[in-house]
Protein backbone atom coordinates (compact mmCIF):
# COMPACT_ATOMS: atom_id res chain seq x y z
CA UNK A 1 0.00 0.00 0.00
CA UNK A 2 3.01 2.27 0.55
CA UNK A 3 3.46 2.61 -3.19
CA UNK A 4 -0.15 3.60 -3.76
CA UNK A 5 -0.31 7.14 -5.03
CA UNK A 6 -3.94 8.24 -5.03
CA UNK A 7 -5.30 10.49 -7.74
CA UNK A 8 -7.25 13.32 -6.14
CA UNK A 9 -9.39 15.76 -8.08
CA UNK A 10 -10.11 19.08 -6.34
CA UNK A 11 -12.77 21.39 -7.74
CA UNK A 12 -11.66 24.78 -6.44
CA UNK A 13 -13.63 28.01 -6.52
CA UNK A 14 -11.83 30.81 -8.35
CA UNK A 15 -12.68 33.29 -5.59
CA UNK A 16 -11.39 31.34 -2.60
CA UNK A 17 -9.79 27.88 -2.70
CA UNK A 18 -8.03 28.41 -6.03
CA UNK A 19 -6.56 31.69 -4.77
CA UNK A 20 -5.71 29.94 -1.49
CA UNK A 21 -3.76 27.37 -3.55
CA UNK A 22 -1.92 30.29 -5.15
CA UNK A 23 -1.25 31.67 -1.69
CA UNK A 24 0.10 28.28 -0.58
CA UNK A 25 2.45 28.37 -3.56
CA UNK A 26 3.60 31.92 -2.83
CA UNK A 27 4.34 30.90 0.75
CA UNK A 28 6.30 27.85 -0.46
CA UNK A 29 3.97 25.56 1.47
CA UNK A 30 4.14 21.93 0.42
CA UNK A 31 1.12 19.85 -0.46
CA UNK A 32 0.94 16.51 -2.29
CA UNK A 33 1.27 16.51 -6.07
CA UNK A 34 -1.55 13.91 -6.06
CA UNK A 35 -4.08 16.74 -5.97
CA UNK A 36 -5.17 17.82 -9.44
CA UNK A 37 -6.90 21.18 -9.22
CA UNK A 38 -9.78 22.15 -11.49
CA UNK A 39 -10.64 25.83 -11.25
CA UNK A 40 -14.35 26.58 -11.35
CA UNK A 41 -16.04 30.00 -11.34
CA UNK A 42 -18.04 28.95 -8.27
CA UNK A 43 -18.53 25.61 -6.51
CA UNK A 44 -22.21 26.01 -7.42
CA UNK A 45 -21.08 25.12 -10.96
CA UNK A 46 -19.93 21.66 -9.84
CA UNK A 47 -22.70 19.18 -10.52
CA UNK A 48 -23.09 15.70 -9.07
CA UNK A 49 -22.14 14.36 -12.49
CA UNK A 50 -18.74 16.13 -12.48
CA UNK A 51 -17.88 14.39 -9.22
CA UNK A 52 -19.21 10.99 -10.31
CA UNK A 53 -17.43 11.11 -13.66
CA UNK A 54 -14.13 12.07 -12.02
CA UNK A 55 -14.41 8.90 -9.93
CA UNK A 56 -15.60 6.74 -12.81
CA UNK A 57 -12.69 7.85 -14.92
CA UNK A 58 -10.19 6.81 -12.29
CA UNK A 59 -9.89 9.35 -9.47
CA UNK A 60 -9.53 7.80 -6.01
CA UNK A 61 -10.97 10.80 -4.22
CA UNK A 62 -12.67 14.07 -5.10
CA UNK A 63 -13.18 17.19 -3.07
CA UNK A 64 -14.92 20.46 -3.67
CA UNK A 65 -13.41 23.52 -2.01
CA UNK A 66 -15.57 26.63 -1.81
CA UNK A 67 -15.98 29.85 0.09
CA UNK A 68 -16.66 30.12 3.80
CA UNK A 69 -20.29 29.98 4.84
CA UNK A 70 -22.00 33.23 3.81
CA UNK A 71 -19.05 34.43 1.71
CA UNK A 72 -20.00 33.04 -1.72
CA UNK A 73 -19.30 35.57 -4.48
CA UNK A 74 -22.59 34.45 -6.07
CA UNK A 75 -24.44 34.35 -2.72
CA UNK A 76 -25.28 30.67 -2.39
CA UNK A 77 -23.11 28.57 -4.74
CA UNK A 78 -21.21 27.01 -1.85
CA UNK A 79 -24.49 26.03 -0.14
CA UNK A 80 -25.68 24.35 -3.35
CA UNK A 81 -22.34 22.54 -3.65
CA UNK A 82 -22.54 21.30 -0.05
CA UNK A 83 -25.96 19.77 -0.75
CA UNK A 84 -24.73 18.15 -3.97
CA UNK A 85 -21.69 16.68 -2.27
CA UNK A 86 -23.98 15.19 0.39
CA UNK A 87 -26.16 13.72 -2.40
CA UNK A 88 -23.16 12.18 -4.16
CA UNK A 89 -21.80 10.75 -0.90
CA UNK A 90 -25.10 8.92 -0.37
CA UNK A 91 -25.13 7.68 -3.97
CA UNK A 92 -21.55 6.41 -3.64
CA UNK A 93 -22.47 4.55 -0.45
CA UNK A 94 -25.39 2.94 -2.27
CA UNK A 95 -23.28 1.69 -5.18
CA UNK A 96 -20.57 0.38 -2.86
CA UNK A 97 -17.81 2.85 -3.75
CA UNK A 98 -18.01 4.67 -0.40
CA UNK A 99 -19.15 8.23 0.24
CA UNK A 100 -16.02 9.03 2.26
CA UNK A 101 -14.11 9.41 -1.01
CA UNK A 102 -15.85 12.73 -1.57
CA UNK A 103 -15.75 15.79 0.68
CA UNK A 104 -16.68 19.46 0.76
CA UNK A 105 -14.30 22.00 2.31
CA UNK A 106 -14.61 25.72 2.94
CA UNK A 107 -11.82 28.29 3.04
CA UNK A 108 -11.12 31.90 2.16
CA UNK A 109 -8.66 33.20 -0.45
CA UNK A 110 -6.16 34.06 2.29
CA UNK A 111 -6.09 30.58 3.83
CA UNK A 112 -3.05 29.15 2.05
CA UNK A 113 -2.13 27.05 5.09
CA UNK A 114 -5.65 25.59 5.27
CA UNK A 115 -5.48 24.71 1.57
CA UNK A 116 -2.14 22.90 1.97
CA UNK A 117 -3.29 21.10 5.13
CA UNK A 118 -6.62 20.09 3.55
CA UNK A 119 -4.84 18.72 0.46
CA UNK A 120 -2.39 16.79 2.65
CA UNK A 121 -5.00 15.40 5.06
CA UNK A 122 -7.42 14.39 2.29
CA UNK A 123 -4.65 12.67 0.31
CA UNK A 124 -3.64 10.72 3.42
CA UNK A 125 -7.25 9.76 4.10
CA UNK A 126 -7.67 8.42 0.56
CA UNK A 127 -4.29 6.66 0.77
CA UNK A 128 -5.59 4.87 3.89
CA UNK A 129 -8.86 3.97 2.12
CA UNK A 130 -6.93 2.47 -0.78
CA UNK A 131 -7.59 2.63 -4.51
CA UNK A 132 -11.02 3.41 -5.95
CA UNK A 133 -12.83 0.00 -5.94
CA UNK A 134 -14.25 0.73 -9.40
CA UNK A 135 -10.75 1.06 -10.82
CA UNK A 136 -9.62 -2.11 -9.03
CA UNK A 137 -12.58 -4.00 -10.51
CA UNK A 138 -11.84 -2.68 -13.97
CA UNK A 139 -8.23 -3.84 -13.67
CA UNK A 140 -9.55 -7.29 -12.72
CA UNK A 141 -11.58 -7.31 -15.90
CA UNK A 142 -8.34 -6.83 -17.77
CA UNK A 143 -9.10 -3.43 -19.21
CA UNK A 144 -6.50 -0.70 -19.44
CA UNK A 145 -7.70 2.56 -17.95
CA UNK A 146 -11.26 3.59 -17.26
CA UNK A 147 -14.06 3.98 -19.77
CA UNK A 148 -14.25 6.94 -22.10
Amino acid sequence: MESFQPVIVAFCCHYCAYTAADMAGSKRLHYPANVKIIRVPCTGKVSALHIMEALRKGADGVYVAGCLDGDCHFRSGNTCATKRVAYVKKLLDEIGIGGERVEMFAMSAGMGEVFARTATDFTEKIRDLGPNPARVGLDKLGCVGAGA
Partner: protein
Amino acid sequence: MITAERKPIEDLIQSVSPYRRILLVGCNECVTVCSAGGRKEVALLSSALQMHFMKEAKPFEIKEITLERQCDPEYIEELVPIIDQADAVLSMACGCGVQEIARRFKEKPVLPAVNTTFMGASERQGVWAERCAGCGDCVLGVTGGVCPIARCSKQLLNGPCGGSTRGKCEVDPDIDCAWQLIWDRLKALGMTERYEENIPAKDWRTGRGGGPRKIVREDLA
Protein backbone atom coordinates in the same frame (compact mmCIF):
# COMPACT_ATOMS: atom_id res chain seq x y z
CA MET B 1 -46.38 17.99 -15.00
CA ILE B 2 -46.20 14.29 -14.23
CA THR B 3 -43.76 13.88 -11.37
CA ALA B 4 -41.55 10.91 -10.61
CA GLU B 5 -38.71 9.85 -8.36
CA ARG B 6 -35.81 7.62 -9.21
CA LYS B 7 -36.12 4.14 -7.77
CA PRO B 8 -33.56 3.20 -5.10
CA ILE B 9 -30.21 2.36 -6.70
CA GLU B 10 -30.26 -1.03 -4.99
CA ASP B 11 -33.49 -1.94 -6.83
CA LEU B 12 -32.11 -0.72 -10.15
CA ILE B 13 -28.89 -2.69 -9.75
CA GLN B 14 -30.97 -5.78 -9.08
CA SER B 15 -33.25 -5.21 -12.07
CA VAL B 16 -30.42 -4.70 -14.60
CA SER B 17 -28.17 -7.43 -13.16
CA PRO B 18 -29.37 -10.21 -15.51
CA TYR B 19 -28.36 -8.14 -18.54
CA ARG B 20 -25.01 -7.15 -19.96
CA ARG B 21 -25.99 -4.39 -22.39
CA ILE B 22 -28.46 -1.75 -21.23
CA LEU B 23 -30.07 1.05 -23.21
CA LEU B 24 -30.83 3.82 -20.72
CA VAL B 25 -33.56 6.06 -22.10
CA GLY B 26 -34.47 9.44 -20.64
CA CYS B 27 -37.32 11.78 -21.52
CA ASN B 28 -37.07 15.52 -22.20
CA GLU B 29 -40.50 16.37 -20.84
CA CYS B 30 -42.04 16.19 -17.35
CA VAL B 31 -39.36 13.99 -15.76
CA THR B 32 -36.70 16.45 -16.91
CA VAL B 33 -38.51 19.30 -15.17
CA CYS B 34 -38.92 17.34 -11.93
CA SER B 35 -35.27 16.21 -12.10
CA ALA B 36 -36.11 12.51 -12.21
CA GLY B 37 -35.32 11.27 -15.70
CA GLY B 38 -33.91 13.94 -18.01
CA ARG B 39 -30.52 14.01 -19.72
CA LYS B 40 -28.68 14.89 -16.50
CA GLU B 41 -30.30 12.15 -14.49
CA VAL B 42 -29.63 9.66 -17.28
CA ALA B 43 -25.93 10.57 -17.20
CA LEU B 44 -25.78 10.37 -13.43
CA LEU B 45 -27.52 6.99 -13.23
CA SER B 46 -25.37 5.67 -16.06
CA SER B 47 -22.23 6.76 -14.20
CA ALA B 48 -23.44 5.18 -10.95
CA LEU B 49 -24.38 1.85 -12.56
CA GLN B 50 -21.14 1.67 -14.51
CA MET B 51 -19.10 2.30 -11.38
CA HIS B 52 -21.03 -0.34 -9.45
CA PHE B 53 -20.46 -3.02 -12.06
CA MET B 54 -16.82 -1.95 -12.52
CA LYS B 55 -16.38 -2.55 -8.79
CA GLU B 56 -18.01 -5.96 -9.14
CA ALA B 57 -15.68 -6.68 -12.10
CA LYS B 58 -18.77 -7.59 -14.11
CA PRO B 59 -18.88 -6.82 -17.84
CA PHE B 60 -21.52 -4.16 -18.29
CA GLU B 61 -22.26 -1.78 -21.16
CA ILE B 62 -24.68 1.09 -21.05
CA LYS B 63 -25.78 3.38 -23.83
CA GLU B 64 -27.58 6.63 -23.04
CA ILE B 65 -30.21 8.43 -25.06
CA THR B 66 -32.82 11.00 -24.10
CA LEU B 67 -35.88 11.28 -26.31
CA GLU B 68 -37.93 14.43 -26.80
CA ARG B 69 -40.97 12.53 -25.46
CA GLN B 70 -41.32 8.88 -24.61
CA CYS B 71 -45.13 9.02 -24.70
CA ASP B 72 -45.31 9.71 -28.46
CA PRO B 73 -44.65 6.92 -30.97
CA GLU B 74 -42.78 9.11 -33.46
CA TYR B 75 -40.03 9.79 -30.94
CA ILE B 76 -39.83 6.13 -29.89
CA GLU B 77 -38.83 5.37 -33.50
CA GLU B 78 -35.46 7.01 -32.76
CA LEU B 79 -34.61 3.86 -30.80
CA VAL B 80 -34.95 1.59 -33.85
CA PRO B 81 -31.30 1.84 -35.02
CA ILE B 82 -29.87 1.13 -31.56
CA ILE B 83 -32.38 -1.14 -29.83
CA ASP B 84 -30.66 -4.32 -31.04
CA GLN B 85 -27.43 -3.28 -29.36
CA ALA B 86 -29.12 -3.70 -25.97
CA ASP B 87 -30.31 -6.74 -24.02
CA ALA B 88 -32.82 -4.61 -22.11
CA VAL B 89 -34.11 -1.05 -21.90
CA LEU B 90 -34.04 0.92 -18.65
CA SER B 91 -36.48 3.82 -19.01
CA MET B 92 -36.33 6.96 -16.87
CA ALA B 93 -39.66 8.25 -18.21
CA CYS B 94 -43.01 8.07 -16.42
CA GLY B 95 -45.08 4.91 -16.74
CA CYS B 96 -46.50 6.16 -20.05
CA GLY B 97 -43.05 6.20 -21.64
CA VAL B 98 -42.10 2.78 -20.29
CA GLN B 99 -45.30 1.32 -21.75
CA GLU B 100 -44.81 2.99 -25.12
CA ILE B 101 -41.35 1.47 -25.51
CA ALA B 102 -42.68 -1.92 -24.39
CA ARG B 103 -45.52 -1.65 -26.93
CA ARG B 104 -43.17 -0.77 -29.78
CA PHE B 105 -40.44 -3.32 -29.03
CA LYS B 106 -42.37 -6.41 -28.02
CA GLU B 107 -39.35 -8.72 -27.70
CA LYS B 108 -37.26 -6.38 -25.56
CA PRO B 109 -37.48 -6.30 -21.75
CA VAL B 110 -38.26 -2.75 -20.58
CA LEU B 111 -37.54 -1.84 -16.98
CA PRO B 112 -38.77 1.26 -15.14
CA ALA B 113 -36.06 3.36 -13.45
CA VAL B 114 -38.44 5.78 -11.76
CA ASN B 115 -41.61 5.58 -9.71
CA THR B 116 -44.24 7.76 -11.36
CA THR B 117 -45.86 9.67 -8.54
CA PHE B 118 -48.45 12.38 -9.25
CA MET B 119 -49.52 15.34 -11.37
CA GLY B 120 -48.11 18.35 -9.61
CA ALA B 121 -46.51 21.76 -9.64
CA SER B 122 -43.18 23.14 -8.43
CA GLU B 123 -43.56 24.79 -5.02
CA ARG B 124 -39.93 25.95 -5.11
CA GLN B 125 -36.59 24.67 -6.39
CA GLY B 126 -36.47 20.94 -5.68
CA VAL B 127 -39.98 20.69 -4.19
CA TRP B 128 -43.01 19.39 -6.08
CA ALA B 129 -46.54 18.98 -4.73
CA GLU B 130 -49.64 17.16 -5.93
CA ARG B 131 -52.22 19.42 -7.55
CA CYS B 132 -54.43 17.34 -9.84
CA ALA B 133 -55.91 13.84 -9.63
CA GLY B 134 -57.20 13.74 -13.22
CA CYS B 135 -60.78 13.11 -12.08
CA GLY B 136 -62.16 14.01 -15.50
CA ASP B 137 -64.72 16.52 -14.18
CA CYS B 138 -62.95 19.64 -12.93
CA VAL B 139 -64.47 21.46 -9.95
CA LEU B 140 -61.82 24.18 -9.60
CA GLY B 141 -64.31 26.77 -10.86
CA VAL B 142 -66.45 26.36 -7.76
CA THR B 143 -63.72 25.72 -5.21
CA GLY B 144 -61.75 28.91 -5.70
CA GLY B 145 -59.01 27.30 -7.77
CA VAL B 146 -57.99 24.82 -5.08
CA CYS B 147 -58.67 21.16 -5.84
CA PRO B 148 -60.41 19.21 -3.07
CA ILE B 149 -59.90 15.92 -4.95
CA ALA B 150 -56.13 16.15 -5.19
CA ARG B 151 -55.40 18.21 -2.09
CA CYS B 152 -57.88 17.01 0.53
CA SER B 153 -56.71 13.72 2.04
CA LYS B 154 -60.31 12.50 2.12
CA GLN B 155 -61.27 14.00 -1.26
CA LEU B 156 -64.18 15.73 0.44
CA LEU B 157 -66.42 17.83 -1.77
CA ASN B 158 -68.06 19.61 1.16
CA GLY B 159 -65.33 20.08 3.72
CA PRO B 160 -63.53 20.52 5.92
CA CYS B 161 -63.72 17.47 8.15
CA GLY B 162 -63.15 17.45 11.90
CA GLY B 163 -59.48 16.72 11.38
CA SER B 164 -58.67 20.22 10.17
CA THR B 165 -56.65 22.06 12.82
CA ARG B 166 -55.23 25.55 12.38
CA GLY B 167 -55.28 25.10 8.63
CA LYS B 168 -53.47 21.78 8.67
CA CYS B 169 -54.60 18.24 7.90
CA GLU B 170 -54.80 15.54 10.57
CA VAL B 171 -53.02 13.12 8.21
CA ASP B 172 -49.80 15.14 8.40
CA PRO B 173 -49.19 18.56 9.98
CA ASP B 174 -47.13 19.49 6.89
CA ILE B 175 -50.20 19.14 4.66
CA ASP B 176 -52.38 22.20 4.28
CA CYS B 177 -56.09 21.58 4.78
CA ALA B 178 -57.47 21.98 1.25
CA TRP B 179 -60.78 23.24 2.57
CA GLN B 180 -59.05 25.90 4.66
CA LEU B 181 -57.28 26.99 1.46
CA ILE B 182 -60.58 26.98 -0.42
CA TRP B 183 -62.24 29.10 2.29
CA ASP B 184 -59.32 31.57 2.36
CA ARG B 185 -59.42 31.88 -1.41
CA LEU B 186 -63.21 32.33 -1.59
CA LYS B 187 -62.92 35.01 1.10
CA ALA B 188 -60.23 36.82 -0.89
CA LEU B 189 -62.46 36.64 -3.96
CA GLY B 190 -65.50 37.89 -2.02
CA MET B 191 -67.34 34.72 -2.95
CA THR B 192 -67.96 33.13 0.44
CA GLU B 193 -71.59 32.48 -0.47
CA ARG B 194 -70.28 29.79 -2.79
CA TYR B 195 -69.05 27.88 0.24
CA GLU B 196 -72.65 27.53 1.42
CA GLU B 197 -73.65 25.65 -1.72
CA ASN B 198 -73.59 21.91 -1.34
CA ILE B 199 -71.66 20.16 -4.06
CA PRO B 200 -73.60 17.02 -5.07
CA ALA B 201 -72.04 13.56 -4.97
CA LYS B 202 -69.41 13.27 -7.68
CA ASP B 203 -69.75 10.91 -10.61
CA TRP B 204 -66.46 9.08 -10.39
CA ARG B 205 -66.98 7.31 -13.73
CA THR B 206 -65.19 10.23 -15.41
CA GLY B 207 -62.16 9.29 -13.37
CA ARG B 208 -60.57 5.92 -12.74
CA GLY B 209 -63.95 4.61 -11.59
CA GLY B 210 -64.89 4.15 -15.24
CA GLY B 211 -61.84 2.05 -16.08
CA PRO B 212 -58.93 3.08 -18.33
CA ARG B 213 -59.84 6.26 -20.22
CA LYS B 214 -59.30 7.40 -23.76
CA ILE B 215 -59.74 10.75 -25.47
CA VAL B 216 -60.71 10.76 -29.13
CA ARG B 217 -60.77 14.05 -31.02
CA GLU B 218 -62.70 13.18 -34.14
CA ASP B 219 -61.35 16.20 -36.03
CA LEU B 220 -57.77 15.11 -35.39
CA ALA B 221 -57.95 11.34 -35.25
